[in-house]
């Protein structure tokens, strides 16, 4: 018998699904990061799974419960757990305890500074520990929703209810509060240090131009924005939360004010994760139905990386060279695509 199989969307879209190396993490996954060319899948609970370029996998114990947050600078990964611990992982798969919360409160957020400083938060308090410096802390009026270091200088953005606070841990001066009503969760500086953007509890983003604290409202999402990524060169901010990837233009001095976002890669599923290629105008997007696409920003051309029919994509990351794309769904079915 001869013939060929046309399976759904594959007829009209370039597919590289056959080039994906499947990875069986075996337990639910919350995030993935790269340390060099080794993909590190952060479990929803307890462990991290290292997958080396040759496919060798190993599991490292991290927390005594849920892993609530993780971040990487490419050299190390820092995680926060519901066991009250802040842990660090290096490329050699060595886990190290960085801090323990005295009352075993949850470590909700972590952030890394390019100079090596680590920040974490528990409840309303954000902590910073820089190399060769004392640990410092700062309390905001409500529980910390997210943390981000500015790309330059020692400045930490702390998202919370009704705004975000810019804290300078090394200066005695008062922290600066950027106000906007509502609950702010995720937070990011633009790579050029000109804008601060938060994702809110409601389906919207809020931004401030740091020079004059001018507001930028970015609304219209059907669902909450859980994933944000600056496109190569920081020209745009790609986001999840809709049934297309929404990319807000940030190239001009006014950012996205008065402009419409680009909408790419529409599917009949919600975008759950976005990850920008580190060098080129290419974006990876994961969807609520398990699909993973690569999208070219210049013309919207799509390449299928993973088919639909699974739980939502929960983890998505490129390595620093942009030669490897790793992904995983909520249940831990994962893959790595070499390019």
């Amino acid at each position, binding site marked *: 018998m001869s013939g060929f199989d046309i399976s759904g969307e594959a007829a009209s879209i370039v597919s590289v699904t056959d080039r994906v190396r499947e990875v069986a993490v075996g337990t*639910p996954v*919350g995030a993935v990061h790269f340390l060099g060319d080794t993909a590190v899948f952060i479990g*929803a*609970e307890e462990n991290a799974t290292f997958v080396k370029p040759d496919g060798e996998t190993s599991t490292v114990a991290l927390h*005594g*419960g*849920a*892993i*609530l947050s993780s971040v990487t600078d490419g050299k190390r990964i820092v995680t926060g757990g*519901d066991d009250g611990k802040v842990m660090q992982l290096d490329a050699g798969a060595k886990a190290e305890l960085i801090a323990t919360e005295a*009352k075993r*409160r*949850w470590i*909700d957020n972590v952030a890394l500074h390019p100079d090596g400083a680590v920040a974490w938060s528990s*409840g*309303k308090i954000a902590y910073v520990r820089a190399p060769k410096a004392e640990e410092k802390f700062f309390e905001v009026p*409500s*529980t910390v*929703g997210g943390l981000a270091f500015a790309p330059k200088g020692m400045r930490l953005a702390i998202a919370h*209810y009704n705004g975000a606070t810019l804290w300078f841990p090394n200066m005695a001066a008062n922290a600066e509060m950027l106000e906007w*009503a*509502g*609950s702010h969760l995720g937070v990011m500086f633009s790579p050029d240090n000109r804008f601060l953007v938060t994702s*809110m*509890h*409601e389906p*919207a983003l809020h931004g401030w131009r740091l020079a004059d604290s001018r507001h930028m409202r970015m609304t219209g999402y059907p*669902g*909450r924005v859980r994933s944000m990524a600056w496109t190569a060169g920081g020209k745009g901010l790609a986001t999840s939360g809709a049934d297309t990837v929404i990319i807000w233009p940030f190239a001009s001095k006014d950012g996205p004010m008065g402009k419409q976002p680009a909408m790419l890669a529409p599917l009949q599923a919600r975008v759950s994760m976005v990850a920008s290629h580190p060098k080129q105008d290419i974006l990876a997007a994961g969807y609520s139905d398990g699909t993973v696409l690569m999208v070219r920003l210049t013309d919207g051309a799509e390449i299928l990386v993973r088919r639909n029919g699974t739980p939502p994509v929960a983890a998505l990351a490129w390595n620093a060279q942009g030669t490897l794309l790793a992904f995983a769904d909520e249940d831990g079915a994962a893959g790595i695509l070499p390019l």
Partner: protein
Amino acid sequence: MTTAAALSKIPVTVLTGYLGAGKTTLLNRILSENHGKKYAVIVNEFGEIGIDNDLIIGADEEVFEMNNGCVCCTVRGDLVRILGGLMKRKGKFDAIIVETTGLADPAPVAQTFFVDEDVMASARLDAVVTVADAKWLSERLKDAPEAKNQIAFADVIVLNKTDLVSKAELLEVEARIRAINPYAKLHPTERCKVALADVLERGAFDLDRILEIEPEFLEAGDDHDHHHDHDHGHHHHDHDHHSHGLKHYHDEDMQSLSLKSDKPLDPAKFMPWLQQLVQTEGGKILRSKGILAFTGDEDRYVFQGVHMMLEGDHQRPWKNDEPRESRVVFIGRELPEQAIRDGFAKCIAQ
């Protein structure tokens, strides 16, 4: 939410009660009883619970206003965060109990389950259980609006410390409770000794069970609080005749209002009326529930609401031997009774 959709979600019991009523006693009872289930517990004060459990989480009771122009639309921001974290440990526990502080308004907790998409996807509100102090509740209802809110909001009321009051005092406090909330299940107890099945897995917010668990709902008197609890005589010894002795109070500011029609309603009139009502009076309406017979509709329609938030669905076909009767109940503060009655009457299909 219908039963099938609800089954896969983690049930959440909200435990409220004024200071000193016995919330912690009930919580300790739930956690220590040999039921084979594991509970994650969200508390406000660490250390009061005598049970070792790594799934006891401290909360901050942060009430957030939503940015949707609805002033009574508040959620518990900390609860959103904690439930999100707990869901990473799915499979490690069977149910969640949220204990509020004694002065808390239960509405933001309940509304969190109607508003937040992540919470709605993974958890379902099972019931609001209020622990009340038989000796002091009548006093608190006079001077503490929080205590009254907690009674009005409850699906289940554990009337605790009954050993500290006389039979007459107990009848008095029950009547006070019934004047505010005739629909909750009421369990008089000593030291919160109540069957766990009476406080957990109640499905009080499950649209499919609105009737099943509240037979009183249909049997309640025509329009007011003249309601007698028929099914709890077995919980304690000296109560079998209490319906004869139950006084009928009218609470000054918190009431329930029951509406009924044996003629079918016009959905094109009722739905906009209900929406409009909760939009304008939602601040006063704490809870609402209804079972509706619409013209040209073979299915029963059920709805429930918390302040301005409503959810409703077709439930099942009307049975042949079942009177096609519409019932709507509101519990709230200073309800504009006549306006509500008039508005409802206009929804009856002509």
